[in-house]
């Protein structure tokens, strides 16, 4: 995307304003995703 640098990519507020210039939008929505959960398991340490 012309003019968008890597530094801009970490700035969510900036992206919300800038992405429409590139024909895109970003919004908060519920989605089904895959998550990896890692717990410390004190029982196995004892």
């Amino acid at each position, binding site marked *: *995307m012309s003019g968008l640098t890597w530094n801009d990519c970490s700035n969510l507020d900036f992206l919300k304003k800038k992405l429409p210039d590139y024909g895109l939008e970003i919004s908060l929505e519920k*989605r089904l995703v895959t*998550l*990896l959960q*890692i717990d*410390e398991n004190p029982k196995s340490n004892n």
Partner: protein
Amino acid sequence: MKVIYCLMIFLWPLVSSGQKIKPMAIGDKVPDVCFENLFNYNNASVQLSTLGNKLVLLDFMTTGCVSCIRALPRLDSLQRKYKDGLQVFLVTPESAESVKNFLKRKYMAGMELPVMAADTTLSQLFPHTYISHEVLIKNQKVLAITYPEYIVEKNVKAIIQNLQVNLPIKRDITAFQYDQPFLHINELVVPALSYPTSISYSAVTAYMDNVPSRYKEVKDSLRKVISISMINLPLIDLYRKAFSVPHLAPAFILLSTHNRERFIYSKQLGYYKEWLQKNTFCYQGVFPMNRPSSSIQKKIISDLDFYLGLHATLKSDTVNCWVIKKLPGKTTVNKKPVNGDPESNASIDDILFFLNKDFGNTPVINESVKTKDE
């Protein structure tokens, strides 16, 4: 011709019968080599001895190496601050043309770092596989061969002042045999005919210094076993590999721990190399080949849980996500960056990478490739 002549004279004692230059070690006297094909420097070449007692830093890099490029402002700052006592040279095997183009990049503007193009000699004197690779020379003596993170003001200043600084030695062990078993039968005691026809086991070891991280899967049809090795991986990477989600971004990983530094490195914890030594592990599982892959996967995960004192699960859940979508009726422009140049055009993949790279962030997903009807 003068340059070639001087190289021949000074490198002659180091050249073995096989015409290979003998690699230098710490404490060795460096031959009085000519640094050639220099750009962004007063001269096109310079002889090492003319640099007097300046600390010479050779930074082996390439112009497409992102981590190398990110280190340049730090090196430039050191070069400016300690110009009387330090001379940095970026060293690359790339052509003069590539280096000229590199120096035209926006982030290189004003930098006082000379670049040595088309190097073949120095990389033979200081062989390496992984970059950046740092070599410190003073009074023609090799003082350190180390990792880039140790090239910081505290260390450089001390070395310039002739203080003793012990930097870890970077040795790229490329001959490590990832397919060899951790477990060996005692060959001196057990005669060859008594060797078991098959061995199954799993093992976890601590970090193996200087062995590059790798995942390796080997099928041994003779012994009818499959061997899975994960060498020098941090805890999260071990589980990502075990669950077959090697690229799952940190925003999709939930950590329930009071000891986050065991999982995640941050600069406050000190040198990355030292964190790796404490927090990375090697795993090897050797299993009967006729076991289903799902069963082997479960075994690896339970081994990791057991040995590492953790409990990991992969689950599907409906959670809040930042969703990137295409605006109706608009055309999306998505150009790839050129040679890892951060100043070039970022892509949607870059946005996903940067927003998902931190643990605890709301996950970001890309639905911009979907049509309105999907």
